[in-house]
């Protein structure tokens, strides 16, 4: 299997972070420690004095693969997509495959036409013409991959019974019962959230503080409400500091991962 080209938008390989679904065929060099068959590579390796877990060729391959398929999701969400230079191999691959994609994929071709356009900068805002924004709204819509969303849901369920909680009819229960369950959800989900998403407030000022929004403030980051009259600068009070995901660390998924299974059924034998 040839490596897939990196996504030109976020440098993730393979559309947004599906990892290498390598062949499951047994390769020489694989070492099982507990073969029910203790015929075992381990015993054999031990006899030959080369017992090493996943060492050598295989691992080195793995290392290369993992570099190529690194799916960290550590996309700098805040700063848009800052693109670094690609390696020669990736460039060659792109050069070979791009013409075909441009011919057969109209959406992709449309994206390409915008690649040389300067990235929208927050300042100064007025220069950003409405036309441009409309175009972006139309085209920046890759095929939705539900995987990461379902994976996050599965993590919240696993760690904090999130889906159980939301799917239960709570109307007949006392606040105390709901509160006890909320503890389970809060404890587990807040731990999971802390691991998966790095969060920061959009505005570092304390809530309630007086805020001045200059000309050209980013209306995506700050939403003004109330008596909105005239042009910026605006003066107001910070009602909510907002949340910003500064990094996402979803676990990588491997072959056979089915994101639709949020929680397996459990059977006690």
């Amino acid at each position, binding site marked *: 299997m040839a490596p897939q080209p990196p996504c030109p938008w976020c440098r993730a390989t393979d559309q947004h972070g599906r990892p290498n679904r390598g062949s499951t065929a*047994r390769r020489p060099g694989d070492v*099982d*420690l507990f073969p029910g068959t203790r015929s075992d590579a381990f015993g054999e390796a031990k006899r030959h004095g080369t017992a090493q877990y996943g*060492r050598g060729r295989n*691992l080195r391959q793995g290392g290369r693969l993992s570099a190529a398929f690194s799916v960290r999701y550590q996309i700098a969400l805040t700063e848009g997509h800052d693109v670094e230079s690609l390696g020669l191999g990736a460039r060659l691959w792109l050069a070979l495959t791009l013409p075909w994609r441009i011919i057969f994929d109209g959406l992709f071709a449309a994206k390409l036409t915008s690649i040389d356009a300067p990235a929208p900068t927050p300042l100064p805002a007025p220069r950003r013409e409405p036309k441009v924004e409309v175009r972006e709204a139309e085209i920046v819509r890759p095929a939705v991959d539900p995987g990461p969303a379902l994976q996050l849901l599965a993590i919240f369920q*696993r760690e904090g019974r999130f889906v*159980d909680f939301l799917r239960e009819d709570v109307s007949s229960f006392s606040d105390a019962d*709901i509160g006890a369950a909320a503890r389970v959800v809060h404890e587990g989900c807040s731990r999971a959230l802390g691991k998966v998403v790095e969060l920061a407030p959009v505005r570092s000022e304390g809530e309630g503080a007086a805020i001045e929004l200059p000309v050209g403030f980013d209306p995506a980051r700050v939403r003004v409400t109330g008596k909105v009259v005239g042009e910026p600068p605006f003066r107001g009070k910070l009602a909510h500091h907002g949340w910003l995901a500064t990094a996402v660390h979803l676990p990588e998924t*491997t072959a056979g991962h089915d994101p639709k299974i949020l929680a397996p059924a459990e059977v006690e034998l």
Partner: protein
Amino acid sequence: MDAPTFTVGIDLGTTNCSMAACADRDPAQSVAIPQIVAPSEIGEERLLPSFLFVPAEAQFPAGALALPWYPHARDVVGTFARAQGASTPTRLVSSAKSWLSHAAVDRRGAILPWQAPEDVPRCSPVEAAARYLGHLRAAWERAHADAPLAEQDVVLTVPASFDAVARELTMEAAELAGIEAPTLLEEPQAAMYDWLAQRGERWRDELVVGDVVLVVDIGGGTTDFSLIVVRDDEGCLTLERVAVGDHILLGGDNMDLALAYAVRAELAERGTELDDWQVRALTHAARTGKEALLADESLAAVPLAIPTRSSRLVGGTIRASLTRAMIDAVVLEGFLPAVEADARPQVVRRTGLTALGLPYPSDAAITRHLAAFVGRAAALPTAILYNGGVTRAASVRERVRGVLARWLEGVGKPAPRVLAGSDPELAVCRGAAHYGRIRRQGGVKIRGGTAHAHYLGIQRAELAVPGVPPRLDAVCVAPLGMEEGSEVTLPQPFGLVLGEEVSFPFFASATREGDRVGAVVKPQELQELAPLEATLPAPEGTQPGAVVQVHLHARVTEVGTLELSAVEHTTGARWKLSFDVRGTGQS
């Protein structure tokens, strides 16, 4: 081989492993460890739980446990192994490190999971430890493809209480895992190195000549004590480790379990019974509650919520409460009672038949074990360095300090100071990485040499009496405190039979400081280890069965293991003696 780029410290813990590395003069950084967190999901964590889970063939989809470096995995270590093993304990290997130091079992034999049903594949304690180390190595090499671990300077930590045999087996596990010749370092020393690294040159302001630092290391499953003395060596401050305690199988996990049982008993009084799954959920909740109560003295109680296993979360969750009174009674009075300096661990007399499991102490009071340790040490502590997850709790630190202060007050000494500022969870691996750098670049080193003196059992030459086994003498072959790279020779010669297997009883002591090489002591005062064995091939020109005169040499290697060899008097021929770790079959 190029000069190593990194020094890598590995903490092979009883319940958690961790890894840190440093290059050049940068501070040691902990290394993230990718591991299976759920079937088909690989997440990065700072700790690798030291658990190995061996699922049944049909338990998970094919490939669900695959790692990039272990694509056909049929077992799993780390976070998911611990989570899954909690509900399927017969397939879980845990506390492999404690088994590694348990002389009553065959440590190279496939005995784990302990007492597993017939069809569960088993492994030896050495293989289990190798499995964790192999995972760490693969994790390292995934992130550092151009710097294989075997070519880096690796420091592996062991409990100070590990005897020569357990250290040897740790090395064996490392070699199985492809980590060649790591240096061994005692965990409490590693914690001290981390503190030194954090303090930089300022450590000399906090410690003065004559200070005695007590390292109190209370981890998840084990507790270890060490004493480190600050000395003056021609105007320079130096550190020397002067005493180590026993390996005590007691830690935070015991506390969580005890709290869970206390809460369960209270629920039972109200008529609420918990199933096994709920007890585990309760243990988990009790740990969180314990940490909250121990961290904040003003809290009177922490509510606990125990979910049911079914999807009925709101309707099924049981409410309970962990109160300060429970924490005081169970954790502080149960595990850390304010005992007198002359208190000693209570030994329950064993019944005739003892189950052959891990040698858990019969007395859970850590402070009584501490009293025994301080009581037999030559120097009294003036400062405390805490390590291990439990000591993050302010009340635990304060209790240990308070108890020690009272003992010291009793002999007219001031209360001990607390050396603050190190992270009790990662200090050991970071300190190990720091030590690796000191070995290469120089810096303050903790001296102290071997933590144990070792003895060989030799039959007394006396008239045989029918029905009475020949009496044994124990001869000191390697005194306490031998430095790395040093060698001693036993003055008295032995006659060895060539071509036949010979076996000697072997003993250790962590307390007999005065014994020199050749000293003869009673074996009853020592701790028996695995016997030493060797088959000496008859060199050419000698008859098999011939007796040759040999001298026994004991050498502490550069990496910290003990090597014993027999050297023939006349020819200088050398035979290495190895440890027989097949176990004595008694606990």
